[in-house]
């Protein structure tokens, strides 16, 4: 009986075990818990600014799941909270960065929250002008190609950013040389306040891939397994030397663009109300429960563990030192003794 139900999820055909899909689910819970905690701390005045990944977790976790830690590289964007966790950032790293503490792995308190990056996790430091990171991923892929090394670079961005010239330059160049790179457009339909039909002529980002000579696929970004399947295939293609893939994951932005934005000014109240139905976490929980993999008890246990984890992470992060003004002029350039 249970076996029949499990088969319906289709994860085994993708090479995922029961433990894998439960781990994916638990990580979605963790990313959400970290994200929600950031909002609470922002409201409490502890964090200056938050830009959220809520609604993108299934896409991010499914797509980054096939990546190999400490081997592959990621150039993220400002919603990549769940992706950053897959690549190794801990909840404590993320809270520390949001609090802009002195030993924050992303920037030592120099950058705004949401600017993920850490050399130790192979996550490229991110800036604020959108789309610049796409070229960095392509440059990493070019480096691996020149050196003949087995490395895949992945990069993500929104559908608004997909219009930037640098994104086209990056995709075209990657297509010319069949570089090992995966382009991920997390299309949530809104570039701050401007909807898809005012951003993307033709309405499909994935369709643009044809012009660059590689596949573009559209996936349901609420389904982590569909996202995983697309990314696994893209990763294999990259490693086989067949070149890039563009994955357009259709997701829902559950929150306003950022803590400085109020989406009720430009999204219909009905649409905002309706967002809860597209939350990937209860959707995936429902599927896991329907096939008997997840029980209410296990779900409670995960949620309790995740809550304890973020509580502990926040406590430790808050106790970390503030940046030292005396070091504010350091590392404009390499210093004596830097490797």
């Amino acid at each position, binding site marked *: 009986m249970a076996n029949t139900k499990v088969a319906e999820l289709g994860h085994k055909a993708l090479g995922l075990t029961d433990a894998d899909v439960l781990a994916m689910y638990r990580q979605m819970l963790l990313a959400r818990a970290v994200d929600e905690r950031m909002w609470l701390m922002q409201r409490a005045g502890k964090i200056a600014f938050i830009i959220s990944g809520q609604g993108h977790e299934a896409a991010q976790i499914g797509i980054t799941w096939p990546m190999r830690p400490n081997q592959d590289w990621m150039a993220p964007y400002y919603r990549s909270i769940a992706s950053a966790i897959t690549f190794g950032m801990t909840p404590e790293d993320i809270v520390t960065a949001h609090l802009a503490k002195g030993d924050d792995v992303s920037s030592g308190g120099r950058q705004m929250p949401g600017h993920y990056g850490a050399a130790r996790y192979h996550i490229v430091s991110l*800036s604020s002008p959108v789309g610049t990171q796409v070229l960095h991923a392509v440059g990493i892929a070019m480096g691996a190609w020149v050196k003949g090394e087995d490395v895949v670079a992945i990069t993500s961005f929104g559908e608004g950013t997909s219009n930037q010239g640098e994104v086209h330059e990056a995709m075209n160049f990657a297509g010319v040389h069949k570089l090992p790179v995966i382009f991920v457009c997390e299309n949530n339909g809104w570039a701050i306040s401007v909807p898809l039909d005012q951003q993307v002529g033709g309405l499909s980002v994935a369709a643009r891939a044809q012009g660059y000579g590689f596949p573009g696929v559209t996936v349901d970004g609420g389904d982590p397994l569909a996202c995983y399947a697309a990314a696994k295939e893209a990763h294999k293609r990259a490693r086989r030397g067949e070149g890039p893939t563009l994955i357009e994951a259709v997701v829902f932005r559950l929150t306003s663009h950022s803590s400085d934005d109020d989406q009720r000014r430009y999204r219909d109240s009905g649409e905002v109300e309706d967002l809860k139905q597209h939350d990937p976490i209860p959707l995936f929980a429902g599927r896991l429960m329907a096939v008997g993999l997840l029980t209410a008890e296990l779900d409670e246990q995960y949620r309790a563990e995740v809550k304890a984890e973020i509580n502990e992470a926040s406590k430790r992060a808050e106790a970390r030192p503030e940046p030292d003004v005396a070091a504010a002029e350091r590392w404009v350039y390499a210093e004596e003794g830097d490797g």
Partner: protein
Amino acid sequence: MAELNILEAIRAAMDEELERDPNVMILGEDVGKKGGVFGATDGLWAKYGGKRVLDTPLTEGMIAGAAAGAAIYGLRPIAEMQFADFVYPAFNQIVSEISRMRYRSNNAFGLPMVIRMPYGGGVHGALYHSQSNEAYFTSTVGLKVVAPGTPADAKGLLKASVRDPDPVMFFEHKKTYRLFKAEVPDGDHVVPIGVAEVARPGRHLSIFCYGYMRFCALEAAETLAREDGVEAEVVDLRTLRPLDTAAVLTSVAKTGKALVVHEANRFGGFGAEVAAIIAEQGFEHLDGPVTRLAGPEVPGVPFHHNLEDWFMLSPAKIVEAARTLASY
């Protein structure tokens, strides 16, 4: 010692660095089989292959951005902008990304990379093949900016730039490419970044210059000595950022008069910074107004040779400015 022109010296530097370090690569437009529009990479594609000497699409933003990614990955890319005039699509990458990467990552990521750019006028290149746009980059913290004026410096500074842990904008005045030959020391000739050179000692006034202006200033100094008995000290800055402030102040202390010369327009140009440093830190040595001789305030070098000659600085214009200052 070999007698090389600046173009040959630049090519030799890249050849030797490609040979020395497997992480060095070149990317740019037409740098491969053709060897670059000026021939700077001639022969390197055949010697090192199409991956390490890589022809790119016509996308300057991509050239800079992919070079940055490759540098993150551990390579030491030499990116070529075909003309400095075409760098602006890459401005976002250079200013937002490349210059700030080390600082914003709290030293986690440095970008050892070079962007080579042929700049300057006097070659009938008009508004879009003649620009001297170094001030955009000298005012950007996080970049190093180098502008050699001799074959030995071109080779030695390019080698130092390739080995530098931080991004270097390498300005090559295209009029100097084949202007003259001079001796370049044999072997691994490296000239440190950030060190100016007194190209000609003198005691009556200092001429601060770089790139093609070194050639012009030396000719001017010759004339001033012969016709006026004025001994001008010519200081080739060689590196614009970090500027060798000590060398500038030492020369001003010696001569008491400073003439700053560059082909780029005056307003907000690099000379303004040199002049300000002299005014702030060398005031007590001054025996005349800090003077700038710069390109005119027009948006670019106009095409017709009459117009171009009007635009370009020359030994004669430097002589005229130096005479005025010397007689102050």
